[in-house]
């Protein structure tokens, strides 16, 4: 069973306590954006086989959204961090670089 650590509560919980929320760090497009940008924001997903940055909500806990880096090919979790950021923390990226030298970056 997948277990993640909520960065707000600091508790490590099973997935039944969490709600998955899909790809993280999407660039938002709204009114005034081109159709292509809006479509990409709404629907197009990287869906990588490998390192994936994603949103989770501690649904049956503090209720807050947080972000996680996880490998979709092995289910290995690299780390979690608060959602109030536009990019993953540098130390998490360094950790992934060490474990997956050819992962190709988060963007």
């Amino acid at each position, binding site marked *: *069973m*997948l277990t993640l650590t909520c960065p707000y509560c600091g508790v490590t919980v*099973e*997935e*039944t306590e969490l*709600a*998955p929320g*899909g*790809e993280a760090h999407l660039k938002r497009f709204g009114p005034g954006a081109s*159709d*292509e940008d809006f*479509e*990409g924001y*709404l*629907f*197009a*997903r*990287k*869906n*990588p*086989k490998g390192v*994936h940055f*994603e949103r989770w909500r501690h649904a049956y806990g503090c209720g807050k959204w947080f972000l996680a880096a*996880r490998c*979709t*090919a*092995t*289910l290995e979790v690299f780390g979690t961090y608060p959602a109030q950021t536009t990019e993953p923390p540098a130390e998490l990226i360094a950790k992934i670089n060490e474990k997956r030298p050819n992962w190709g970056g988060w963007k």
Partner: protein
Amino acid sequence: MALRRYSMFAVAREALRFHAGWERAWQSPAPKKRYDVVIVGAGGHGLATAYYLGKVHGITNVAVIEKGWLGGGNTGRNTTIIRSNYLQDPSAAIYEKARSLYEDLSQDLNYNVMFSPRGLLMLAQSEHEMRGYKRTVYANNLQGVETRWITPSEVKDLVPIVNIDGPRYPVLGALYQERGGTARHDAVAWGYARACSAMGMDIIQQCEVTGVRTANGKVQGVETTKGSIDCGKLAIVVAGHSSVLAEMAGFRLPIESMALQAWVSEPIKPCMDVVVMANLVHGYMSQSDKGEMVIGGGTDGFNNYTQRGSWHHVEETTRALIETFPIISRLKMLRQWGGIVDMTGDRSPILSKTPVENVFVNCGWGTGGFKSIPGSGWAMAELVAKGEPGPLAADFGLNRFKEGRFIDESVAAGVAH
């Protein structure tokens, strides 16, 4: 390769010579330098695409290449349910095409796919579901899909083991499709493969695509672990790995890959000769020819390529079904497995041209892939052969996301799509 037909006479002939005359069902050639059409993915959809390309459109210089073994992905991992009782017109059309092709697929392929139109019920266990399914019945009658609404006592007649009294979720009736049912999933892949091989197509297994070669926005060929293969057209029919192949070709898809599980109980004597779906409680069940109760539930919610699902789904689904089928409460569960399904936002498939010229995708079947194999192959073959979608595929293009023209089956199809 000339095909030696399977028949009663063939069985009798082989019986007299120690069964020494059976041939391999399909050839395993080395890849040629170039094909008119290369299809990536030798699952049901890829092989059906190849078959109808040859049979309907006369294109036989085709290779179907497969990373693992033939039919080893979702084709061999589903619960083998066949139905076409969908709400939206485009879905009903393509799923009913598939169901109708299943009717005589064994004769068509000269391979017994064991299609068993045993009847399929979708239980209504809440007021909302009852209204929803009655609406589907009316829609189906207009679409030419034969379904009808049946009462709780008719449900009990058809499925004696069902508990129609609740307590929590009483059965209020059911959406009944008499010609829905099951088929032998492996045989569907094997039958198509044999027929494709007989038409001179190359089925190349254990050959992983590592890159897609393009020039001036047009496909040139694919790089594989068995070397470089040139192609005129490329069809990507790889279900869970669609995003990975699209990335190689340089575009993104509105797809997320997730794990969907199924499991079977120990075999018991025949007790249920229809397929029953209980969407409110998130489960569906049928009895296999071996006597196992075959059970499926919902997908996990997170991106996953591991073909392993989360355990709590097994528990939740089985627990829910026990309320509706008290008889299964003492059954031991025998095996459990998972497959990677390609989920779109509107839970409808994508059969489409792509930003790369002469690259076509057939994906997004999500949890409803097996039942659609013949119809999907039929529509995809037309798309690949003509370069433009025919009437079955027209509404399932990638452009529907940009245009906001969804084919919303996420509600209509319930959990077990």
